[in-house]
């Protein structure tokens, strides 16, 4: 059953839309249809955060709880709003009284030109909804997707670190229960859809509906967070005829664990699986915090990062290094392949027409295995990697002639940014496999790497830098593993300072 409409709350007002071009973004909708100009367009590409708005959504596990998520309105399609509450900067004031997230910025002299300010306010608002006493690091993580060209950030950091524990209850807290029950009702509606300007949007609720829609129109464009796809509309001026939204498909938005695997639904946003991955692989959590911005991670998904087959996606090298698999679904039948095999050539994959990525399976670590991840970019926050290195190493120890001998039993050195697809360095791996992890074998692996890759020069880095840094990262990995004993640590990461 299909509902020819989407419904959401704009602040506390119920909005129903049926006839609107689904190619329009939330930002365009706010500024041009609702005449709310508080939310600003800085880049229309999700890079500056000036358009940050907050979505309140019912928690997947606890239907009585709201999650407040900052997102970039400029790269979120209007259809994604269904059954959510959209909160904008104009809605925060209670009468004449500024919200805590606003007043603290005023008090700390955190505005200059003010154009980025509404975005910062909304990011801080979302942060404080879940964490009224954030640490400096938590503030930096929450605001890293908001660029300010004027202040130098110190005043904004001070504002966002100001505790809201004793702040007066805002209007959202006052209407919490009401919002929950309204959104619960909206969630019950049948499959929402939109049509306008000859373009369509539909949001199936389960995998059968999705498979059905896709078999009807195999050329439809699948969209989850849209953090990459929306750029084709806002930057390349493309229009998409039919969008199928994956964010409501129950089977694609779960995370489950078995004894041996973590299974992540392809349309589950990063922010909902970071914690689990961080638990099993500490480097993973730290790296994902640098994928995009908080706003992007609240919308962006693993399926999207793999699905568009970019040579510079950060997740694929890590998944390849871990030997992760992915399950693909076509018309009711499923197949599971290695993530590594998915990538065929530049932007070419094994995915068939009408097929979609259902889930990604990541093996849990066992003793002796290590995953090291290194993201190299010009800027720490929200930057596309020049090189992403993912090293999986399994070391065994055996007794040989009374001596304890260490051997690399299994090694996968995967890289992003080094070739047209995310790829392993086969020769470098061969130089390490079955060897002890030593200066000597590392030197051989470094040398071998130059026969594995011929990286390119582009706006992010030169071919020479890419190769040098990729080689040096093997050495760094060696130093970190060799000196993992607390008494013997060699400091190797500037981020720890």
């Amino acid at each position, binding site marked *: 059953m299909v509902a020819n409409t989407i419904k959401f709350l704009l602040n506390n007002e119920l909005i129903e839309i049926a006839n609107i071009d689904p190619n329009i973004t939330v930002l365009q909708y706010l500024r041009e249809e609702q005449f709310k100009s508080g939310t*600003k367009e800085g880049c229309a590409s999700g890079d500056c955060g000036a358009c940050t708005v907050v979505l309140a959504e019912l928690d997947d596990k606890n239907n009585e709880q709201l999650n407040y998520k900052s997102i970039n309105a400029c790269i979120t399609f209007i259809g994604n709003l269904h059954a959510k509450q959209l909160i904008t900067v104009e809605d925060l004031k209670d009468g004449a009284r500024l919200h805590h997230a606003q007043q603290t910025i005023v008090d700390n002299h955190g505005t200059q030109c003010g154009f980025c300010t509404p975005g910062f306010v909304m990011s801080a608002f979302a942060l404080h909804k879940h964490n009224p006493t954030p640490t400096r690091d938590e503030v930096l993580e929450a605001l890293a997707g908001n660029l300010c060209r004027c202040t130098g950030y110190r005043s904004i950091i001070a504002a966002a670190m100001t505790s809201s524990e004793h702040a007066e209850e805002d209007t959202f807290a006052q209407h919490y229960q009401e919002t929950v029950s309204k959104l619960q009702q909206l969630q019950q509606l049948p499959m929402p859809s939109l049509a306008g300007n000859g373009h369509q949007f539909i949001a199936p609720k389960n995998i059968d509906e999705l498979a059905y829609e896709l078999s009807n129109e195999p050329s439809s464009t699948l969209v989850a967070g849209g953090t990459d796809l929306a750029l084709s509309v806002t930057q390349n001026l493309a229009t998409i005829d039919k969008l199928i939204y994956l964010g409501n498909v129950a089977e694609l938005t779960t995370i489950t664990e078995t004894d041996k695997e973590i299974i992540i639904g392809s349309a589950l946003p990063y922010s909902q699986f970071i914690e689990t991955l961080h638990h099993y692989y500490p480097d993973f959590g730290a790296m994902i915090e640098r994928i995009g911005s908080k706003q992007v991670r609240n919308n962006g998904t693993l399926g999207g990062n793999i699905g568009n087959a970019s040579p510079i996606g950060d997740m694929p090298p890590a998944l390849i290094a871990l030997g992760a698999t992915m399950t693909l679904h076509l018309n009711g039948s499923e197949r599971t392949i290695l993530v590594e095999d998915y990538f065929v050539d530049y932007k070419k994959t094994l995915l068939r027409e009408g097929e979609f990525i259902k889930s990604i399976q990541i093996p849990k670590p066992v003793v002796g295995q290590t995953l090291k991840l290194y993201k190299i970019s010009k800027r720490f926050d929200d930057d596309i990697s020049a090189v992403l290195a993912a090293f999986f190493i399994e070391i065994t120890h055996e007794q040989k002639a009374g001596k304890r001998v260490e051997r690399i039993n299994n090694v996968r050195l995967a890289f992003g940014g080094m070739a047209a697809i995310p790829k392993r360095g086969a020769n470098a791996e061969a130089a390490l496999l079955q060897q002890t992890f030593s200066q000597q074998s590392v030197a051989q692996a470094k040398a071998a790497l130059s026969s594995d890759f011929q990286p390119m020069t582009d706006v992010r880095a030169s071919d020479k830098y890419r190769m040098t840094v990729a080689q040096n990262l093997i050495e*760094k990995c060696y130093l970190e593993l060799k000196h993992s004993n607390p008494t013997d640590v060699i400091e190797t990461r500037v*981020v720890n300072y």
Partner: protein
Amino acid sequence: MRTLIDVKKPQTAKILANTDKTLVNGQKGVGLGGVGRSKKHESADKQVAGEAVYVDDRPALRGELHAAVGQSTIAHGNIISMDLSAVRAAQGVVKVITVDDVPGHTDIGPVFPGDPVLALNKVEFVGQPLFAVAATSYELARKAVKLAKIEYEELEAVLTVKDALAKQSFVRPPYTMKRGDSQTAINAAAHQLSGEIFIGGQEHLYLEGQISTAVPTEDGGMNIYTSSQHPSEVQKLVAEVLNVPLNKVLVDMRRMGGGFGGKETQAAPWACIAALLANETKRPVKFKLARTDDMVMTGKRHPFENNYTVGFDEEGRIKGINIEVNGNCGYSPDLSDAIVDRAMFHSDNAYFLDQATVTGNRCKLNTVSHTAYRGFGGPQGMMTIEMVMDDIARYLGKDPLAVRKINLYGQDERNETHYHQAVEHNNLSEIIETLEQSSDYQQRRQAVKAFNAKHSILKKGLALTPVKFGISFTVQHLNQQGALVHVYTDGTIHLNHGGSEMGQGLNTKVAQIVAEEFQVDVDTVASSAARTDKVPNSSPTAASSGTDLNGKAAQAAAKTIKSRLIAFACEKYGVNAEQVRFANNNVIVGEQTFSFAEFAQIAYMGRVSLSSTGYYKTPKIHYDRASGKGRPFFYYATGAAVTEVIIDTLTGEYKNLRTDILQDVGHSINPAIDIGQIEGAFIQGQGWLTTEELVWNEQGRLLSNNPATYKIPAINDAPKDFRVALMPDAPNREHTIYNSKAVGEPPFMLSISVWAALKDAIASVNDYKTSPVLDTPATPERVLFAVETLKSTKQ
């Protein structure tokens, strides 16, 4: 009346929160007006609530159209043909114009000609506007311009500074400043060194892109709503392209979402094109540049390629120096003559060069025309001499700070610049010594060395660098400004001045100055949009001059009204002028006290004019360009910074761990705003020198054309420990407004300490024996290769 407060301790950023009602050092304010107090930004409450209106936020007008332009896809060539039939036929298109449709001037060069509003018959950079479209929506206009078929005859493009120098391809003639006989002094010195450096440009990346709306009026006139640092120039250029007199064009500029120099000349083309389309269609036209178009089509900070030869003594004291600065000006003059001049004026930074020859070349390349950007060439000029300081220090095995100190300008001797201006009231020794103490420089120098001895992969670096920045437009006639003040009968005050608000807090400071004059609460003073029909012939808000010029002009206007009120009081109440006082929102006349509002009403009834203009021009300045001698600057703004960084010698990644700044802002009119300017300028400068890399390909196309590929500092780039202090007890000895000093640009160059600290960390790899060459921006890639070079030197 002066209500200045002597502040005994440096005012640091940490104690600034909630200081609106009290002074930064805890003292109660003397007067209500608020000069010297950390008043919040006049728009802060509106900005945080999304209520502050920028040009794009104005409600759409009836029939409003949207503009876009077709762009050149090649760097240099003749236009053979332009087939615009598909553009004209495209959905939503109402009007298409080319340069043939321009009724007036076709050249909109701000100082010298060279910038066609739409291409005449040739193109000189990728992205040059060729034709313009007005359509019913923003999206349709942008889609339509892509349908043009343009045929070119390609010409050879000049795409490097070296090529431009070889071909003598200049936008303006070379120029030299000279003091003494530098070559003889270099030859006679105990030691000689030479070096060269590439200094990258910088995209402004104001968060609000370029935008203008043109609304046709009767009599063939035009109202322009724009985001511009120079409304009067927009007015002039719009009038010229439309071929109407200036009094038919009104420009209104309430606020910009950032400017940084990027909206000084670069706002005008889009206003002109919107006006041309509005004139043709008789409908309002909005022209908003999409971010990528903005980055491709508007000018940036000039990249420079500089070199030097220096002679110095055993102590590292400079005896003579030759410096050549080569600015990449892009395809047209724009402001480049003055920008390269300023690079030359600042080739000394804070140091006495003794015998010096400074030559500046204005190279013409087939890229977008580079333009004003915070510091206006000054930063690029200073980089060379700061490189010289490091190079001398490593050569002599000294701490770079020791070499910097020994070369500082003296007080009464060794105090003449290479353009023959005496450096007066020089407090840089004091600033540096205070900062050296407060930042524990010497102890941290030892700690850094100890850290580096212990750590094989990570290395720390530390550097202290000073800034001396000349204040005044070097184009003399721009050093003037006007203001207009009205007092209404309810005692509220309307303030207008020629300056424009881009976030720097200019309106707030000028309102404080006016409120101070009348001793009324600053909330009584309403700031308004800069408008060319209120204050005519205004100068751009640039060169850090905003408060100096507009503050004085507004004060003059307020003083005029005040003197009328005093004269009226004397006459009406039979008192003498000394018996009339303004205090606490009151006017006290002899024994009687009136509220300011009551007295305004009484004065109105007594037929007193409560409106006045004010005017100010900067005194003392003069410069003879032919002889290269004079006093181009009214005074110098000074400051210093210490930065500590950590680098990764395997990847080139780095982090700024701590920055301490001590800046002389004279008597601060608003410490919170000044500290905000210092912090923001510093981080913007750090971005220029580290992560912000402009990349053009071999065809002259900008590759770093969006914020995904061009990385300005984000929140984690702010130093973890950031301590900004204002120099206490330091009134400007020149008679500026309340003896304050300009603050917009000078702290930008404090970021050179980051670059010097990175070099210090790199130098540790070879035991500080070699001065690393580190071009900018010092991306992780450049840092890694500098490390590798030193490693190979060591082996």
